[in-house]
């Protein structure tokens, strides 16, 4: 048996590479559901000893999901940058963990190796890292992207304004947009999940958001999170699409469950680039992911959910996205049972995404059937912000009235920017001041403050 460890006379053997990875993962309900979690706490540590001694190159030679039958594996292997990998090619997974934490792995060194790191390497090393390691390394990585605002600059924390409405009422959505803007939220994107995912419904919302953004010259991008095939149709018809959205997963079969493949993403990427709507950059894609999506589609190939999640980042990476976020606690307790598992997964996803070179954000969230509450979200958002998370999702009062789950509130963004001394994207920050939403010292005016003519005009238009 090639994968064994001896712990004081107690021998632990693992059938194959994916069994080592699954057993080495911190405990979570999704791996238990799949029947691949470590059978005991001791066995979990034994798997980590095995993993620590494996050469990083193992993951280039041994595919967890077959190359022949999975286009995500082919993407990962065929796009691997051997030159970028060279500086770390001699390392074991354990050695890679130590290198990542060392002073040698500074911002430039981490950027240089990003294209040499595969999702499986990132997932593997994360399993040997404590929460503080995930934070410390992610903090050193900088990924900057841009469209009408610039995401990921030092000292900045961006936010997605998520003004969902249960019946897609344009006035209700506009009211929630105004509420977010008055809290300084929306510099990453103003992004609506439509309740009705049809071409005409999405087109109506796209035009409404674009008119609002144009009328008030807001330096941000808008997005209606409709299926990529809808976005293609909508772009063909000439509607003003800023960002193309799609949920993506880590295997060809899981993506088929979403009704997509790499070819349709390529078409959409090319179409959105062709519109040339960005002003300070041309990153036109927005992806969401989440641990458990492959298993829920029965498309995980026996691989643990965190490794499958990292493989989704390879899909995202191929399309130079403006934004990528894990919707970490959305999927439910059968994949991430409680606050502890959600917090751990959020930190893993952020770390793996950043290590692979993605503009990684997070929807810090939970559902009402999970064992979690706002206190857990306070912890995760604070930890992620310390880790340099690119953007977070905010909904009014933490209550998404369309998707029926709890994300962060607009107030939470104020808290994070305040306690951590962070600011919005530079273009957006200038606009906030010009619009009278932020006071000259950068602090936000009170919500009911009618000092700004712009705010009053906007509110009256909507109401």
């Amino acid at each position, binding site marked *: 048996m090639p994968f064994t460890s001896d712990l004081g006379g107690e021998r632990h053997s693992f059938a194959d590479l994916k069994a080592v990875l699954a057993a080495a993962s911190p405990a979570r309900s999704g791996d238990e559901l799949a029947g691949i979690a470590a059978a005991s706490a001791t066995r979990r540590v034994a798997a980590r000893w095995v993993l620590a001694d494996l050469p990083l190159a193992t993951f280039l030679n041994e595919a967890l999901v077959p190359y022949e039958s999975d286009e995500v594996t082919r993407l990962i292997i065929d796009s691997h940058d051997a030159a970028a990998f060279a500086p770390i090619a001699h390392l074991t997974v354990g050695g890679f963990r130590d290198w990542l934490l060392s002073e040698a792995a500074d911002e430039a060194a981490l950027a240089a190796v990003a294209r040499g790191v595969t999702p499986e390497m990132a997932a593997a090393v994360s399993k040997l890292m404590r929460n503080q390691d995930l934070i410390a390394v992610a903090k050193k990585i900088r990924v900057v992207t841009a469209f009408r605002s610039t995401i990921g600059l030092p000292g900045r924390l961006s936010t997605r304004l998520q003004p969902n409405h*249960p019946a897609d009422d344009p006035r209700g959505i506009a009211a929630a947009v105004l509420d977010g803007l008055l809290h300084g939220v929306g510099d990453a994107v103003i992004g609506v999940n439509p309740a009705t995912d049809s071409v005409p419904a999405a087109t109506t919302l796209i035009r409404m958001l674009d008119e609002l953004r144009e009328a008030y010259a807001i330096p941000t991008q808008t997005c209606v999170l409709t299926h990529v095939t809808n976005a293609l149709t909508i772009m063909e018809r000439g509607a003003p699409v800023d960002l193309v959205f799609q949920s993506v997963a880590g295997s060809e079969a899981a993506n088929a469950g979403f009704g997509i493949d790499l070819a349709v993403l390529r078409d959409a990427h090319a179409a959105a680039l062709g519109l040339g709507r960005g002003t300070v950059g041309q990153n036109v894609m927005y992806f969401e992911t989440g641990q458990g999506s492959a298993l829920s589609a029965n498309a995980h190939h026996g691989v643990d959910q965190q490794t499958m999640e990292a493989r989704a980042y390879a899909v995202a990476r191929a399309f130079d996205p403006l934004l990528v976020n894990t919707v970490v606690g959305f999927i439910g307790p059968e994949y991430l049972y409680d606050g502890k598992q959600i917090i751990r997964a959020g930190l893993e996803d952020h770390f793996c995404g950043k290590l692979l070179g993605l503009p990684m954000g997070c929807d810090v969230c939970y559902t009402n059937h999970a064992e979690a509450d706002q206190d857990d979200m306070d912890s995760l958002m604070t930890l992620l912000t310390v880790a340099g998370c690119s953007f977070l999702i905010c909904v009014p009062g933490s209550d998404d009235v369309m998707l029926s789950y709890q994300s962060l509130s607009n107030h939470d963004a104020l808290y994070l920017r305040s306690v951590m001394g962070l600011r919005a994207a530079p273009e957006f920050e200038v606009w906030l001041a010009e619009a009278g939403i932020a006071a000259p010292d950068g602090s936000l005016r*009170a919500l009911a403050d009618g000092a700004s003519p712009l705010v009053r005009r906007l509110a009256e238009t909507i109401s």
Partner: protein
Amino acid sequence: MSEVATGELWARLRRTTPARIALGRVGHALPLAEVLDFQLAHARARDAVHAALDTAALEAALAPLPVLHAESDAPDRAAYLRRPDLGRRLSARSAALLAKAAGHCDVVFVIADGLSATGVQAGAAELVQACTAELGDLTIGPIVIARQARVALGDPIGEALGARVCVTIIGERPGLSVHDSLGIYMTFAPRIGRTDAERNCISNIHGAGGLSPEDAARTLGWLLREALRRELSGVALKDDQTPTLPAEDPSRT
């Protein structure tokens, strides 16, 4: 702008959405009344998740429509929450019972408790009645009330009853503002192994600013006739008038 005028403006804005807008601030934090209001809503949603469906009362509300009962392989709520695979499988007892009722029909309705038995209890009978009124010219099989059920439990049920289309009405995961929302999932040629991309979804059917049963039934009527005509459902049924996929990330369903 006077304070009164500002207040009126925000009151008008709040009427446009059930979202928690214009909450005010204490420093950067929410006012305490908003914090406690949120905690109350969360507590109620948690309670709704764990409520049990009163199937006898639901059957009475559906009368005179013929009703069958079924349950998944999940023995209780705790198992249901941690093991979605069990919630998608028909119990051996139910499979045997449904086999006896095998036949042919255009549509089978499955009423599944899902994550809000509260919502199903309150609104499923009315929704079924609105849908059957839209589909008067089609043959409709017995209504199946399914406990501890996920969306995909409709696949073996529809297959067993020889339905060309399965329409599953399910209690959606409770939110803070709405804990009794229903969703409809339509699957052409239901059978074990269908993926979510092969279903069409109409979500957020409830009385607090969501879709009305009549509007949902109209949308379903159009989709269902198209599914029968084109012999497919899901992503491929995209068109210019109606919903296709679940709006959100499918991993979220």
